[in-house]
C-alpha cells in the first residue's frame, strides 16, 4: 500500500534545480557524460540512466520503484555518502552507499534493519522511493 502511495506522490516531481547550480534530473536530461551525482539506473550494471541526483530527493519521480543499479558518483566533500529509502519522504527501511561505491544489481541487496520499518529486509530491486546525502 505505501508503495502505491509513494508512486502517486512521485508523479508530481519532474526536476529540481538546486542552489549549487547542479540540476537533479530524470531520464531525458541525464547525459551519459554527466558526473558528480547519485545515479539511478533502469538496468543492472549502470545500464540506462533513470535519474541523477545532487540533492536530497524526497520522491524519486519516474525512478520510484524502478531502480536496478545505483552509483554514488558524487564529488567528495561534506555529506557525500548516499542513503536510499524504501518509502517516499525518507521513510521506511534504508541502505547506505559510500561515496564512489556502486551497487550493480539491486537483486543482491536488501534494505538495512530499521527498527521494524516498512520494507525492512526486502530487496532494493524496484523498491527505492527516495534518497538523501549523509556522512558515514
Amino acid at each position: 500500500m505505501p508503495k502505491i502511495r509513494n508512486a502517486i506522490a512521485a508523479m508530481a516531481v519532474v526536476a529540481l534545480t538546486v542552489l549549487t547550480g547542479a540540476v537533479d534530473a530524470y531520464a531525458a536530461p541525464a547525459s551519459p557524460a554527466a558526473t558528480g551525482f547519485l545515479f539511478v539506473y533502469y538496468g543492472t550494471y549502470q545500464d540506462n540512466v533513470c535519474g541523477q541526483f545532487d540533492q536530497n530527493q524526497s520522491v524519486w519521480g519516474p525512478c520510484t520503484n524502478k531502480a536496478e543499479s545505483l552509483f554514488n558518483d558524487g564529488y567528495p566533500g561534506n555529506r557525500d555518502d548516499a542513503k536510499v529509502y524504501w518509502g517516499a519522504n525518507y521513510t521506511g527501511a534504508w541502505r547506505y552507499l559510500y561515496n564512489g561505491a556502486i551497487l550493480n544489481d539491486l537483486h543482491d541487496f536488501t534494505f538495512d534493519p530499521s527498527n521494524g520499518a516498512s520494507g525492512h529486509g526486502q530487496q532494493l530491486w524496484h523498491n527505492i522511493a527516495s534518497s538523501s546525502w549523509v556522512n558515514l
Partner: protein
Amino acid sequence: MRRILYVLVGAVFLAGCARPAGVAMSDADALHTAEKVLLRECMKRAGFEYQITPEARVPGEREFPYVIDDIAWAQRHGYGTDIQRGLEKLRTDDPNQRYFHSLPAARQPAAIAAANGSKPTGLTAKDPEGMVMTHSDQGCQTAADRELYGDAQAWFQAKVTAQALKAMRVERASADPRFAAATEPWAACMHAVGHDYASPAKLRETLPPPEKPLPFHDEQRMAVAEATCALSSGLASTAKDLDAHYDTQLRQQYKHDMETEQRLKQAALPRARDIVRTAGLSS
C-alpha cells in the same frame, strides 16, 4: 523507519573549530583530517582543488534509533525537521561541492575520475550479511586510504563491516520479542493521548518530508507524546538494554573484524598525526 533525528542548538558549526589551541586532535579527528590532507595533495597533483574542512555538524545532532526518549529535546525540536534542514544546507554550502559545480562541464568528469577513479571496480567488500560493495581501486580517495592505512582493500572491507554492524545491532534489538512486547504499552500510552500508532517506526512513516513539515506545534506535540510514553511505558529502557546486549553479542561474534578495524586505525595513527602536523593543522 525512523527518520534519523538530530538536535540543532543554534547554528551549524564545524566540529574541529571547537578544539582549543594546543589540545591534540582526537584519534578520529586525526585520521579524518589526515585522509583529507592526502586527498587534497593528490587532487592538487591532478590539477584540481580540494578544501579541507572540519567535519561539519549540526550542533548537538543526535540519533534516536529506536524511539525518542528525551522530552526536552522533543519540546525543542519536535521530530527534528529543523535539524534536517540544517543538514541539507551542509551539503549545499560545502565548499567542495561548490567548487565541483563551478568547474566547466567538460572538466567535471576528470575531477570525478581524479577523486573516485575512472571506474568503480577494484575494491570489493562483503558485509556480514553477504552483500558485496564495489569501489574503485584508483583515484585520490583510494590513494589516500592506501597511504594512510597501508591497504586500501582491507580498509574498505573494515569500514563496510563496521557500518553493517551498527545496523545489525539495531536490527537485532528491534527484532527481539522483548522490544515488540515493550512497544505494546507504548502504543497504548500513545492511544490514550490521541495518537494511534503501532510503533515509533510506523509513526515516523506518517510524517511529511522536512521541506513540507507539519506545523511545529503539531510535530512537537507528537514528539513529546512519543518521548513521554517511551519513558513511562518502559520502551526506552528496554531499547537501551537490548541495544547494549546486542552490541556485546556482535562484538563477540565479529571480534576478529572489529580487531582488524582497530588494528588498521592504530597503525595509521602515528602516520596520521605526522601528516596533520606537517600540514600545519594540528599540534
